[in-house]
């Protein structure tokens, strides 16, 4: 709960008195109320309040105190306070922690949680007889609002507490939640909203999202506590040139684990966590208790690790962002971040969570995984010291979420379009939504859009004679409810040990990875090496394998892009005469780059070209973040294809794109004309895999494609296939379709990240330094070891095919036997 003994008893004038019972209870605990807790109590009647407080600052109690006091003095029938957290685990945790004061003070308060894990019988009872305080998630709340009896269940609701709102605010889950709150506010006009947030760069933006538009939202800032103690882990051995494993640092990390009580070891991707955990165990001679926790692991396995952690049985946990939020971390006294943090804000929040002691600084170590990340880590440390948090402003509320909201509303009963529109624009993110845009979403929900209106399955709403809208087929409610949510799981397949009757579940791997496996391949999951045996229905069957090293590197995970602010810091660092703050191995590397080529400079774009590996290589140091560099790679290869330069593929990192092909680039400037790139973007966007992925996500959220259900799903590949073709179909027959419009908007600010390319283009303003070199440069070398190379299928492929075919026919000695050379084709067929 984060109540702590605090010597600074803060007595404020005009404060709302704490009831005797509470006062006594605080006293028996030896606690005093934090100033921000008192402030929250004083402002209990404010329509919306945002509290920004560090972890361990009694933030959650601050959110609940007004509720507990109100319920203690004035008994209430039915639901009083709704608590929303981004994580199921957090809801369960808060329930435990609330039970303590409620039982110890003998308060007449019933607290229950409701998540996807709650048994159906309990859920049913909760709807008929709701508790005073209901703890839930945005998805479960959206589901509740889809029932016809929603107005009865939420009758009398007085307060909503949104925990970890900074995490929700960055995603569509937050938009969905705020739409649901808009609905609740209509049912209960006096509803008070409270948001609890970690430190963020722009509290006003979150306040705008939280409050009913145009209500004001006061922001309370709690004492941020002492600055974190954070540094880079120095090792005797230099980090490798590329990769994210950080295996070199294992001895040093083990040393740190020994010196601390409990250490959390964060990784940016699941794959890296798996490899690191595996290597850690190989080196763990003292058999320190170390566990692993990430989102792909089987739930039971995760729960076991969480339990062991709470009981203090683990010395270290190797984890990913799945452990980032809210779960009670127990007595963690060290956070190690493996790999560059990519984003300063996330780093600060992550470290902030480590410490439950309010007045002691939290301690953290950064471990760069490769040579470039040494520079990145040092830049991030500077940013933390300067208090410079990064973040990009969010755009207007996404329309796919709105489409889902319209369907959810329809599931609850007939509605009036104007009423719903007015409700939607009370949500901050949708305040600027035009009626026309709303009507387009409504039309999509009703008919599926122009190209699809002939198809029955997408005809979902009809307008009644009284003008209100209702579901065409009441049975659709079930489909709509099953489709609720905005989290996009990549399609994953369960992994099990192969046994006659279905062995132990180990976790999940991404389908794309599973598809790349052939029997006999070995890979890592849950820290063990397994051998791929085969695919049975939707399960990957594996056997244990004693190999020391997995054959197939691993599966993918989330990849974050280095933020604009951090990238700028790195380029600035490059300008120094020397780098005393960097370890010698890295400083030497940069110096060598300066000697044989040059270092990227602010306001200029460095491009290096050189032959390597039998191909012409070009490296563009755009510093546009991974997604931006990826898009740049796609756009440039497309232009190169048009110019007959036969590009064959590219790979992108956060700072550069490497393109290889059959021809060298002589004059890169024409390639970089922003207008031309933008033109290319429009046509390229149409047929691009990134767009298809984005389309798939938006189409699922908006209800055009049904979320895969275990029974309906034969293979995820099928679903990908069909959403891809649906995308192509709409492109061809209805290019103005709402969902294509949404997809473009989403992709531009998400995976495509064209904004970063525009930013790069502005920064560079045509100042290109093109260096033609004879061999790979130090800064370019790591690019050749990067994973995730993207092939370009164009003229180069036809050339290669012809070349290879000639070779094969020649080898087979049948080149001159069968195929007669054609004299001349008489006609041509469009392929």
């Amino acid at each position: 709960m984060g109540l702590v003994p605090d010597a600074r008893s803060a007595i404020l004038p005009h404060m709302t008195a704490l009831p005797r019972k509470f006062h006594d209870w605080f006293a028996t605990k030896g606690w005093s109320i934090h100033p921000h807790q008192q402030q929250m109590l004083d402002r209990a009647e404010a329509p919306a309040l945002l509290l920004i407080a560090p972890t361990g600052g009694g933030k959650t109690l601050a959110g609940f105190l007004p509720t507990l006091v109100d319920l203690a003095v004035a008994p209430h029938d039915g639901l009083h306070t709704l608590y929303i957290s981004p994580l199921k685990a957090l809801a369960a945790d808060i329930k435990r922690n609330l039970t303590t004061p409620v039982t110890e003070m003998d308060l007449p308060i019933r607290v229950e949680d409701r998540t996807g894990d709650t048994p159906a019988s309990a859920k049913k009872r909760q709807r008929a007889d709701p508790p005073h305080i209901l703890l839930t998630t945005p998805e479960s709340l959206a589901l509740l609002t889809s029932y016809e009896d929603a107005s009865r269940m939420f009758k009398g609701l007085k307060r909503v507490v949104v925990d970890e709102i900074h995490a929700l605010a960055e995603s569509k889950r937050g938009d969905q939640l705020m739409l649901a709150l808009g609905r609740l506010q209509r049912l209960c006009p006096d509803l008070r909203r409270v948001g609890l947030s970690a430190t963020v760069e722009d509290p006003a933006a979150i306040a705008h999202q939280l409050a009913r538009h145009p209500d004001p939202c006061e922001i309370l800032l709690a004492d941020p506590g002492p600055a974190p103690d954070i540094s880079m882990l120095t090792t005797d051995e230099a980090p490798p040139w590329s990769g994210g494993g950080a295996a070199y640092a294992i001895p040093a990390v083990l040393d740190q684990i020994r010196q601390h009580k409990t250490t959390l070891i964060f990784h940016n991707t699941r794959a890296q966590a798996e490899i690191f955990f595996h290597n850690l165990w190989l080196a763990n001679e003292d058999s320190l208790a170390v566990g692993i926790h990430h989102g792909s692991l089987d739930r039971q396995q995760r729960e076991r690790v969480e339990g062991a952690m709470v009981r203090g049985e683990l010395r270290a946990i190797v984890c990913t962002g799945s452990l980032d939020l809210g779960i009670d971390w127990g007595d963690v006294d060290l956070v190690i971040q493996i790999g560059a943090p990519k984003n300063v804000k996330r780093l600060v929040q992550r470290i902030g969570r480590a410490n439950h002691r309010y007045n002691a600084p939290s301690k953290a170590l950064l471990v760069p995984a490769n040579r470039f990340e040494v520079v990145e880590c040092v830049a991030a440390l500077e940013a933390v010291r300067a208090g410079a948090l990064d973040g990009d402003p969010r755009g207007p509320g996404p329309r796919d979420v709105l489409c889902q909201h319209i369907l959810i509303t329809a599931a609850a009963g007939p509605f009036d379009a104007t009423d719903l529109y007015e409700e939607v624009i009370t949500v901050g993110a949708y305040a600027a939504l035009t009626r026309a845009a709303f009507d387009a979403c409504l039309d999509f929900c009703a008919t599926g859009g122009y190209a699809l209106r002939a198809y029955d399955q997408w005809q979902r709403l009809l307008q009644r004679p009284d003008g209100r809208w209702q579901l065409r087929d009441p049975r659709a409610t079930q489909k709509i409810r099953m489709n609720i949510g905005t989290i996009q799981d990549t399609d994953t397949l369960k992994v099990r040990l192969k046994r006659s009757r279905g062995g132990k579940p180990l976790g999940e791997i991404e389908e794309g990875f599973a598809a790349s496996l052939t029997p006999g391949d070995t890979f890592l999951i849950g820290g063990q090496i397994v051998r791929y045996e085969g695919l049975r229905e939707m399960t990957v069957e594996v056997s244990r394998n004693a190999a020391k090293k997995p054959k197939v590197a691993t599966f993918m995970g989330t990849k974050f892009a280095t933020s604009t602010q951090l990238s700028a810091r790195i380029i600035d660092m490059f300008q120094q005469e020397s780098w005393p703050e960097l370890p010698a191995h890295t400083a030497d590397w940069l110096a060598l780059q300066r000697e044989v080529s040059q270092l990227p400079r602010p306001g200029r774009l460095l491009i290096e070209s050189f032959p390597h590996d039998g191909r012409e290589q070009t490296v563009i140091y755009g510093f546009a973040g991974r997604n931006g560099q990826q898009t740049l790679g796609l756009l440039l290869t497309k232009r190169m294809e048009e110019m007959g330069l036969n590009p064959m593929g590219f790979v992108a990192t956060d700072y550069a794109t490497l393109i290889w092909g059959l021809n060298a680039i002589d004059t890169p400037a024409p390639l970089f004309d922003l207008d031309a790139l933008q033109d290319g973007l429009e046509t390229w966007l149409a047929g691009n895999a990134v767009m298809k992925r984005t389309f798939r996500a938006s189409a699922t959220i908006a209800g055009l494609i049904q979320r895969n259900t275990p029974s309906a799903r034969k293979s995820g590949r099928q679903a990908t296939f069909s959403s891809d073709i649906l995308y192509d179909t709409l492109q061809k027959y209805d290019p103005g379709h709402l969902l294509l419009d949404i997809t473009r908007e989403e992709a531009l600010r998400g995976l495509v990240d064209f904004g970063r390319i525009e930013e790069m283009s502005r920064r560079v303003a045509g100042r290109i330094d093109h260096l033609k070199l004879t061999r790979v440069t130090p800064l370019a070398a790591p690019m050749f070891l990067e994973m995730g190379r993207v092939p370009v299928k164009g003229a180069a492929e036809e050339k290669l095919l012809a070349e290879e075919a000639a070779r094969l026919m020649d080898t087979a000695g049948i080149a001159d036997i069968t195929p007669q050379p054609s004299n001349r084709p008489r006609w041509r067929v469009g392929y």
Partner: protein
Amino acid sequence: MNCHDFSFASASLKALGSGALWWPDEALLCISDLHLGKSERVARRSGQSLPPYETHDTLTRLAADLAHSNARIVVCLGDSFDDLTAAAALPDDIRLWITRLQAGRRWIWIEGNHDPGPLEFGGEHLQELTVGPLTFRHIAAPDAQGEVSGHYHPKADLQARGRRISRPAFLCDSNRLILPAYGTYTGGLRSHSDVLGRLMQPKALAILTGPVPTCIPMPR
């Protein structure tokens, strides 16, 4: 140039990049495994909805091939419809379109395992057809000579400087020629598969479809 010329059972043939077979001397165009109405059948049987318009897409390509070749004879080598119900359920505009394509040509529907039995479309319905040295049937028969068949949806792949290229392909040896599937949404069977390996002679060739049809020894 987007056809590959070859001779088979003494007939001079052209494998088109689209997957159609063109026999100039007879002005005969042969396509196999159109699987028209597939999304309808998939929706009917599994509840999964494949996107619409795939029939439209297949016919667009066929119309282009017909326009370019001006074929006098069209042989649909079986599995032209995903099943008989799908054939019956094709919307009116599609039926009209097929009729327009048929106008002025001899049109033969060879029966396939997906569409056995008579269809209510114009044209001849045959088990198999013999024209000169060539026999057209849906599934390859044992010990056949000069046989043109479909059914297997063959595809072939190869590695070219580290890049894997995989495409629907014609398979050809001295006795048989197997056509790739022409329909949109038709998967493929790799030429490495046992069944194709047994069916084709050791010196068989594969002609990969695509912008430039390319002939290679059949990968196995």
